[in-house]
């Protein structure tokens, strides 16, 4: 029983990270049709920014951690807004070129991170509480899992609130449904594009800081490895659906953890198998619009 609980919480923690990356990806794809390969670079930059803050502050208390979260999210958001404003904006409606741009950007950015911070992983210190465990139903669950889960739930709630209850959220939702209609109504949908990119980047940057605590290190490859699972999550959840991304993120991560433990380290393989099954029986994803 205790193993099951431990695996469940580890899976939830990982799912939280997947969600933080996938949420932005899914919204960006839903609204703009851009598959954002640079999303991993947003995450990595967030992680490195958070690490720099922790290193320069020289302390590992809660305030430093919160500050690093803020700085990480801000760095991710700034990078994302820059990407949208300078590169993506010039190529609206040309989805392949937009994808290629983000691909080139991710290559260049990861190489630049390699050059600045080195290719080796740098290890990271969080508040001492992260190292402890909490006992739940006999399982000793590491505390950093809870932080990830709580942060992801907060982000999910904030995003849902924003999308449901604000004017810009409404424009974004309408844009995902039918962009040309929104434009026809005289609303400048480009502002919504920049906004969605910024929000996605902030979530990814936040995810980066949390991921660096979850895994215990930062490396330029951090974003790339999470990005691939985030892609899988967005496809399984249904492109453009935030709730779908949340459900799929948890499902994928928990499945991965259980398969890794009980089926001899085949977690990644099982996830791809699940993706194949979803595609065979429901090509538009769990909560995607059926075309």
């Amino acid at each position: 029983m205790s193993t099951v609980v431990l695996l469940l919480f580890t899976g939830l923690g990982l799912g939280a990270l997947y969600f933080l990356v996938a949420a932005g990806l899914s919204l960006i794809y839903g609204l703009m049709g851009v598959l954002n390969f640079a999303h991993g670079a947003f995450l990595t930059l967030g992680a490195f920014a958070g690490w720099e803050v922790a290193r320069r502050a020289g302390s590992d208390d809660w305030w430093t951690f919160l500050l690093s979260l803020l700085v990480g999210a801000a760095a991710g958001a700034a990078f994302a807004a820059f990407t949208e404003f300078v590169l993506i904006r010039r190529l609206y409606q040309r989805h392949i070129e937009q994808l290629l741009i983000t691909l080139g950007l991710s290559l260049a950015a990861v190489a630049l991170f390699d050059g600045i911070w080195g290719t080796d992983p740098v290890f990271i210190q969080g508040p001492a509480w992260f190292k402890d465990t909490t006992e739940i139903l006999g399982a000793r669950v590491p505390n950093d899992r809870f932080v990830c889960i709580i942060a992801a739930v907060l982000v999910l709630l904030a995003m849902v609130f924003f999308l449901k209850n604000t004017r810009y959220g409404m424009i974004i939702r309408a844009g995902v449904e039918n962009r040309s209609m929104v434009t026809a109504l005289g609303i400048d949908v480009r502002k919504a594009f920049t906004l969605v990119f910024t929000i996605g980047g902030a979530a990814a940057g936040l995810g980066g800081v949390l991921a660096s605590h979850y895994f215990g290190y930062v490396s330029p490859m951090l974003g790339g490895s999470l990005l691939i699972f985030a892609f899988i999550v967005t496809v399984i959840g249904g492109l453009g659906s935030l709730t779908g991304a949340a459900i799929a993120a948890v499902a994928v991560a928990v499945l991965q953890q259980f398969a890794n433990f009980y089926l001899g380290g085949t977690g990644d393989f099982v996830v791809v198998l699940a993706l194949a099954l979803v595609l065979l029986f429901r090509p538009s994803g769990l909560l995607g619009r059926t075309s």
Partner: protein
Amino acid sequence: MTTDTDAADTNGTAAAGTDSNSTAASTTAADGGSGNPAGPRRTAAAAGSTPPAGPHPRLTRRTAAGAAAGLAGFVLLILLPLLNLSLPGVLPGPTYTPGSLQLLAMCMLMAAAALTYHLLLGVAGLLSFGHALYFGAGVYGLAIILQNLDIPLLPAMGLTLLVVIVLAHVVGSISLRVSGIPFAMVTLAFAQAGSVIVGRNPDGTTGGDEGLTLRTDNLPDFLVGVVNTRNLYWLALAVLVVVFVVVTWVESSRAGHLAAAVRENELRVRVLGLQPYLVKLLIFVVSAVLVSIIGMVFLLLQSGAVPRAISADLTITLLVMVVLGGVGSRWGAVIGGIFYTILDQRLTTLANSDAIDALPDILRIPLSEPLFILGTLFILVVLFLPGGLTGAAKRLAQRRNRRGRSTGHDGTGNDSTGPDRTGPDRTGHESTATSREILEESA
């Protein structure tokens, strides 16, 4: 440019391959070949595409001259290992040295691999992020078979091919259930699964991060050792030529036309009662099989299998090559492959040079990362050079033509003809204009 409906119309007829439009388009392809800067490698284009439609003397003379120059270039490429040519800045040493031959052979293989990717992206419009899976399957499949079974090279290659054919059918039939961007993600996921399996090193078969060293017991002697690099070079050159011929053949076959039609307007193909799914699967499998053969030769050339050969990075590299050269152009893929490989090698040398080390941090860090420069270059090409290198060359040639010729024609009467190669990308404009010029010339 014509309207959408017109374009679809022309594509419908081009798919049938019966009227003059498709002939005009193949002439365009041939012209694109002889118009580009890599003169030495022209032969296959001239040989591979159909002869020009009209017996116009000027056009035939030009084609003949191009073919002759191409043949000379091809002979030069064959003789290269026997010559003592130095290209400082491009090759690490004279052409007969193993180091240079290794790099040249790598260029050939990468150009061939880019060609197979062109078959996916340029012809069928399939943006796959899992092409490395089949390349890696060729590399690792052959390495593992040679390691564990005592059979000669050719049967081992046959066995690997069989595995790749099955794999490509399974993965292709599942991933082709979605199209466009979701297809890209799904192929990426499958390739990632392959990459993860190789990294996990099940029962020590793949060697994990270390990779596998090629077991040479059952290899023919002329393919083993540094002394025989030139044999490997010839092998790589042969692979490039064969892949080029096969890709040209597939592209100009009925299936190729159908695939191009699917790329332009899948719904219309369906309305015509044809099966987009099957033809896409065919192109997918052919491309996978070709790239796995290239992978096997890559294994012989590198005398070892490394995890990079099956990583997503490799697919991205191929994609970058195709885009740098120009999407939709066979020569673009070849040039992109060669250009990228040489640039990557040169930049790596540059990164480790003393001149870079002496620079201040703000210049040193970006310049010592080849991928940073290549990535930035790639972004710039996508932003400012639609149609890649071949597109730019074509535009230059066009401008020169226009300046050289009297201003008698403006070509407006030919608007409804020839946008056969009008892709979803901006290269369409270029090729339309060029085919228009060809028509003018032959009219």
